[in-house]
């Protein structure tokens, strides 16, 4: 990913400072690997895939009310480990939001008012 692409992805989030969504999927490695190329097929990571399992999901609303989902059980891996990773992903998402607000706090009025 180029620097410009990375920056573009980051700024795409600027217009939506509403909800924050974090989802964690798991599954067998061979289910997500293209048998021909040996490359990971990331398109398999969607709720309708049927191959990979949603282990946990978190929705943080603007008022900081939070909705959490966690699977009762998973076939692959240790659920506690998955939840530990998910919690770290939520924390990272919050950190990103915090940094973003700090970065743009003084900037948004100046450029939107121009």
């Amino acid at each position, binding site marked *: 990913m180029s620097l410009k692409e990375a920056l573009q992805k980051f700024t795409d989030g*600027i217009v939506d400072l509403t909800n924050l969504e*974090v989802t964690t*999927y798991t599954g067998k*490695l061979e289910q997500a690997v293209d048998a021909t190329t040996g490359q990971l097929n990331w398109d398999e990571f969607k709720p309708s895939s049927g191959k990979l399992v949603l282990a946990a999901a978190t929705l943080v609303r603007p008022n900081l009310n939070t909705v959490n989902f966690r699977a009762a059980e998973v076939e692959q*891996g240790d659920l506690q480990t998955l939840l530990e990773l998910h919690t770290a*992903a939520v924390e990272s998402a919050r950190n*990103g939001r915090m*940094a973003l607000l700090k970065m*743009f706090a003084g900037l948004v009025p100046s*450029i939107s008012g121009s």
Partner: protein
Amino acid sequence: MSQAQPDELTDLLGAVASLGEHVERAREVLPKAPLGPGGQPDGKGPLLSQAIAVAHGAVLRLAAFAQGHTRSFPSGATLRLHRHGHRVLLEVLGSPAAGEVRAYLQELARIDRGLLESAELLGLLLGLSAQWVAAGFAPPVVLLTLSQSAPRILELGAGLTTELSAG
């Protein structure tokens, strides 16, 4: 309050990322430009170069965060965190060992820390960038504003403790 547009913000960040090029161009056009606040020949060449390097480092920290984090481990497990706007997707393939999970979490925390430490500096750079874009990157504006802000940029850069290494 109206919201900033992503393209506009990407342009501003892009301007910061290519700061070195803009300064080089400005120096070619204005090789003896008076840059100091009182119109003094600036004598700040090294200072500007240091400020540019610090600014570039801050943008790289932002990019490291934005691009997410993927690691494959000896156990065969792969962990991938993907960010897009307000969504974060974490993919756990296989069964990572405890040590692998710990290593991944440490790396993720380091990348987060790099961004959080850089946020104030990035805010300052974005403010400068908005001025450069508005001025069409006019060399006098680029050099003067950067020269005036270089001490503060270096001050904020001195607070960056997180190693800038491949994530």
